[in-house]
């Protein structure tokens, strides 16, 4: 899915860049630059999703949720179950085609939610169930 998403983005950038190159740059450099731009975009489109996929992981223990995502800048987030406020389940158009889903766990902090992307639908639903059940067991208003 990431392959496709990024592929689409990269294709758009590549087309844009090569048009720009063709329009503005003087003749001898024109095709070279356009070619370079396309090559760069293709590389990005191939490398980044694989990289991202290899980085992306998640874990749920009895008391906490853990996610790791990103590629160049990598972010690991940990939230204790007692502070979980909402658990969201979302499926975009592309995700539905592939039967995938994203689970988002938010806490009361403005510093950002924990997102688990590209789970297959059944796993995601089971995860949502599990998280909701565990978060429910804890008393208090999670702040």
């Amino acid at each position: 899915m990431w392959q496709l998403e990024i592929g689409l983005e990269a294709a758009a950038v590549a087309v844009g860049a090569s048009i720009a190159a063709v329009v503005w740059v003087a003749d001898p450099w024109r095709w070279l630059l356009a070619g370079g731009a396309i090559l760069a975009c293709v590389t990005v489109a191939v490398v980044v999703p694989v990289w991202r996929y290899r980085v992306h992981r998640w874990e749920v223990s009895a008391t906490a949720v853990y996610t790791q995502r990103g590629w160049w800048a990598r972010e690991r987030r940990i939230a204790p179950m007692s502070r979980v406020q909402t658990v969201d389940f979302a499926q975009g158009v592309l995700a539905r085609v592939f039967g995938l889903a994203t689970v988002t766990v938010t806490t009361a902090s403005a510093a950002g939610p924990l997102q688990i992307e590209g789970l297959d639908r059944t796993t995601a639903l089971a995860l949502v169930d599990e998280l909701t059940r565990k978060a429910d067991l804890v008393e208090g208003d999670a702040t």
Partner: protein
Amino acid sequence: MTPWQRLDPRMLLVHPITELVKFLPVLIGLLIAGGASGTGPWALLGVGLPVGLGVVRYLTTTYRVSEARVELKRGLLQRHTLSTPLDRVRTVDLSASLIHRLLGLATVVIGTGSVATDSDERLELDALPREHATALREHLLQRRGGATDPAAVGGNPEVVVVTFTPRWLWYAPFSGAVLVAAGAVAAAAGQLAEFVDIRITEDDIAGIGPGFVLAVAVGALVLAVALALAGYLLTNAGFALSRQGAAWHVRRGLLTRRETSIDVTRLAGVTIGEPAALRLARGRKVGAIVTGLGSDRAGSAVLLPPAPARTAAEVTRAVLGTAAPASGPLVRHGRAATTRRFTRALLGAALVVVPVGVGLALGGPTWLAAIAAAALVVALALATDRARSLGHAHLDGYVVTRSGSVLRSRDALGSEHVIGWNLRATWFQRRAGLVSVAATTAGGKGRVEVADVPVEAALVLASAATPGLVDQFLDVAHDRAREVVR
């Protein structure tokens, strides 16, 4: 059922006066028109309308505080009834303008943490007699904190921690307010110049000597400082921080006096502001990190305006119950982090140095070199200070972090208010074995953050603050950090 109550009848005076002020332009117009055509009924209407509005406002606004809810009814044509459960009340603020204070009144604003910004949706009682207002505040806040804090039962003497002294004015020019004031002066000067429409000829420009420029600069500076002082005085004169039962009260303001209250259980930590200029003057300021109070309402979380460092330390100790977070030693981040500070600063300076170098090579004037040198010096000074500032620790149950240079701040967040950890590292940081750590919380900016912590130190900090939370992923996380380095 508790009976519905009205606001204080003295508001019959306040409302007409405020309405009169609002209507002043219209009134003046009417008077002039009336003067031209002989005084007629119009002038009377002009005075009567605001007074009438005030009376209507008084008659239509009622409130009641029952065992479980606060309710407020208002409006003549469009009736509003606001109602909120008592246990949702998060803050109770009192404010009193000059007129209010003369009449012994205070406005009560009840905050529920709701995001509604519409003025119709605010629970605002404008106004009650001063004693009623404080009693109401105590009643509302007691319900939250009273059950948990035995000290809150009975009497509730108000213990004052610090009060404003004129000496604090010394710190006003060192706060960011001077820059704001300078901006205001410049803008005003621009407006004035446009208004006066001065025609400047070439001769005039030739006649301007360095002395004149200096005089203007000094004049502007003096004016800016004066404005900063006046602003500081207006907002902070009469400042007092006190503890009553289970709440902290902050009182301040020269003309309009505001009193904000922070529930002790929601006070997650403090931010000690140590901007470079204020450090030069040995001053500090202190803000509170309050659960449910976002950074957009930072104004109501001030615990101490720019004031002596010693006072700041006292306030922190009083508020947190321990002196360690404000003064305890911090763990430094080591060589790798320092190197990163310098590379980043020098890369920034390169943006200036490289074009200058090119300019010189192309035969530009030699004073260009001075600019490059200045940029380098500034970059090095910043990097040194930033590297020295970086630090973190877990002191007496508080996660303490310090970073920044021009806007340096030292944050202390109670461990029990940490609701998660974000560890972020770019490829460069992973190579250097560093990670940016953020402890997330439900108030303030949402996190307490420090850049470039050595990975091991970060994990030590996290497991000290929240035992058993990060540990369960720790080995894994550690291994991955290593694996990535390769």
